[in-house]
């Protein structure tokens, strides 16, 4: 026995058409919430993809160790989320950690990052810039192609420095500056290499290497006696070993620190705390989406109740000619499904239109994926069923005689 699927679908489309404006308005109520969801998912997906691509490389074999100060661990309040990216009063990570990690099995390269703002002085006046203190392992982990010269060597006896493309230009009005010297806090550093221009506005851990200078961590003490290691990047020899290394780092550092005051993340979730402002926007949008979906759902319920009472007689007639309660129930469920599905599709359209509009001002594209379409459709179906259930049940349980007697 067929479930009258065709008839129900046909009926609900007819009914949508018959009450075009009120149905459409109800659907738009759903569409607003859906558009928010599409916006969040597609933009955060796009951003995450960008970050994951940059951080974990092609193989997804990068792990990142971050300090977790008490503040960031426990205080998840709104304001601290908006607060600047990573200003820990006191990083829990030490050079000892770096050494420990580099000795672990299957670890191919380790690069700590200790970023400070400093004045650099070349030939001309001093220029403000970011100084990244790290090890030679960084070259292995992030792809940093050199324009001239070579990368740092940990074993070098000299104060070596590698300049970003634009920084070099600002310091010397030239790119070929290997052999020149740069003064950082009155300490003299020898330029050993200049990076090729990267030119990407969103960068790995917010470091714009074009505008940064890279020095060795073991020399950084000279310019900053309160050096904070903001994170340690670890490259694992092969992807299969990632989980094992992940565990080992956790175990070793916990032993070393006495408490788990750090976190280890891998490529997929590395972006989580990278851009907190984006997270906040995401939270607000989800809230808006949630609220408007509930409001939209109530709209669907409302219009369905109106529709059921308007069509009381029709229900009576249908029952008189052989419709079961289930048939009536399905008929009205399909109607509310149609409302919410059309809302979902509209929301998909609006959401992507918005997302592409916004992303034209952003350095990344919104993620277009079947998952997002799937999520929207699934939520539409859920809302349609959830909020259509009560009106449909009410329609199904109407007494045929009372319904037939019902005059309007």
């Amino acid at each position, binding site marked *: *026995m*067929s479930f*009258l699927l*065709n*008839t129900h679908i*046909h009926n609900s489309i*007819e*009914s949508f058409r*018959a009450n075009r404006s009120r149905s459409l308005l109800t659907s738009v109520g759903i569409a607003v919430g859906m558009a928010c969801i599409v916006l969040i998912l597609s933009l955060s997906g796009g951003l995450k993809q960008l970050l994951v691509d940059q951080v974990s490389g092609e193989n997804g074999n990068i792990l990142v160790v971050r300090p977790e100060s008490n503040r960031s661990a426990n205080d998840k309040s709104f304001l601290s989320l908006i607060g600047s990216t990573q200003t820990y009063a006191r990083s829990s990570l030490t050079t000892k950690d770096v050494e420990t990690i580099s000795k672990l099995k299957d670890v191919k390269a380790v690069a700590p990052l200790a970023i400070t703002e400093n004045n650099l002085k070349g030939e001309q006046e001093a220029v403000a810039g970011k100084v990244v203190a790290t090890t030679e392992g960084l070259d292995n982990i992030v792809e940093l192609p050199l324009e001239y010269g070579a990368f740092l060597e940990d074993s070098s006896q000299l104060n070596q420095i590698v300049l970003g493309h634009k920084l070099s230009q600002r310091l010397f009005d030239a790119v070929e500056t290997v052999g020149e010297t740069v003064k950082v806090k009155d300490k003299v550093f020898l330029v050993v290499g200049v990076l090729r221009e990267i030119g990407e506005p969103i960068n790995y851990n917010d470091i714009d290497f074009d505008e940064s200078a890279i020095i060795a961590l073991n020399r950084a003490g000279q310019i900053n006696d309160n050096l904070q290691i903001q994170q340690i990047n670890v490259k694992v020899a092969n992807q299969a070993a990632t989980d094992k290394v992940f565990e080992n780092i956790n175990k070793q550092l916990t032993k070393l620190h006495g408490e788990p005051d750090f976190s280890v993340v891998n490529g997929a979730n590395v972006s989580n705390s990278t851009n907190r402002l984006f997270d906040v926007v995401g939270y607000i949008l989800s809230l808006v989406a949630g609220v408007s979906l509930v409001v939209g759902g109530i709209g669907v319920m409302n219009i369905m109740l109106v529709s059921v009472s308007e069509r009381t*007689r*029709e229900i*009576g*007639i*249908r*029952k*008189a*000619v*052989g*419709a*079961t*309660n*289930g*048939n009536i129930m399905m008929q009205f469920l399909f109607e509310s499904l149609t409302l919410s599905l059309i809302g979902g599709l509209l929301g998909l359209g609006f959401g992507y239109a918005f997302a592409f509009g916004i992303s034209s001002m952003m350095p990344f594209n919104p993620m277009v994926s079947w998952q997002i379409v799937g999520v929207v459709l699934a939520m539409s179906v859920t809302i349609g069923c959830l909020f259509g259930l009560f009106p449909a049940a009410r329609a199904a349980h109407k007494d*045929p*005689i009372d319904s*037939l007697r019902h005059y309007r």
Partner: protein
Amino acid sequence: MNERVQPIIELNELSKRYGIGDAEYFALSNLNLTILPGEFVMIMGPSGCGKTTLLNIMGLLDRATSGQYLLDGKAVERISRRRQARMRGNKIGFIFQNFNLVPGLNVIENVALPLVYRGYYKTRRLTVASKVLERFHLQEREYYMPWQMSGGQNQRVAIARALVNNPSIILADEPTGNLDSRNSHIVMEELKEIHDQGNTIVMVTHNAALTTYATRVINMLDGQIDTDVKTTADADLPTAAPKEPKKAKPRKKPRKNKKGKS
């Protein structure tokens, strides 16, 4: 006809109570009635004597408070609501005083409505409905909406809908109540024709002039049968011609497209 015919409807000591306690009111009390295939029963009686209540119970729209109801030999009380709904679709055709066409559907869709719940596909539904409409000379009105037609036309559409799935019995509650005498006459001629082809009809009316069409006239009073007069002997009742076996159950009366009795 053969000796014993299976009655379509058999009511034994049927009662219907509305309200409880002091407000208790019996719309039907201990009513007995047997309706044979091929009968054209007219039920008359003063307003409020329980005619509509009786018809609703016979049509499975309502349930009796007590008593037994056998439809086609089966006790209805034992049947689930779901099955009862299916039986309404398969065995019973309703005709109402106010036509009760679905306002959003056009003529042919209204006629085809009972077939929806039999699970017929759309093309088949429309072909069958179209054939029935042709009988009522309404084929050129197929795509009219109910509000575009006269009351008489609407009632003929409603009759077509009642016939579309070959019911065992047609229940009509004052089908001419909203019509003028000319249209009443047209509708009665249609019903007569249907009856002549072997259909069983139970009709409620206030118009004594229409009883000439009936084979049996029942007068009700206070929820009971007052008088019951058969104007045609049981043996002379029209029977369904065994021709055109619609591969449905053989007991059901096949509808014929052409006039003519066996």
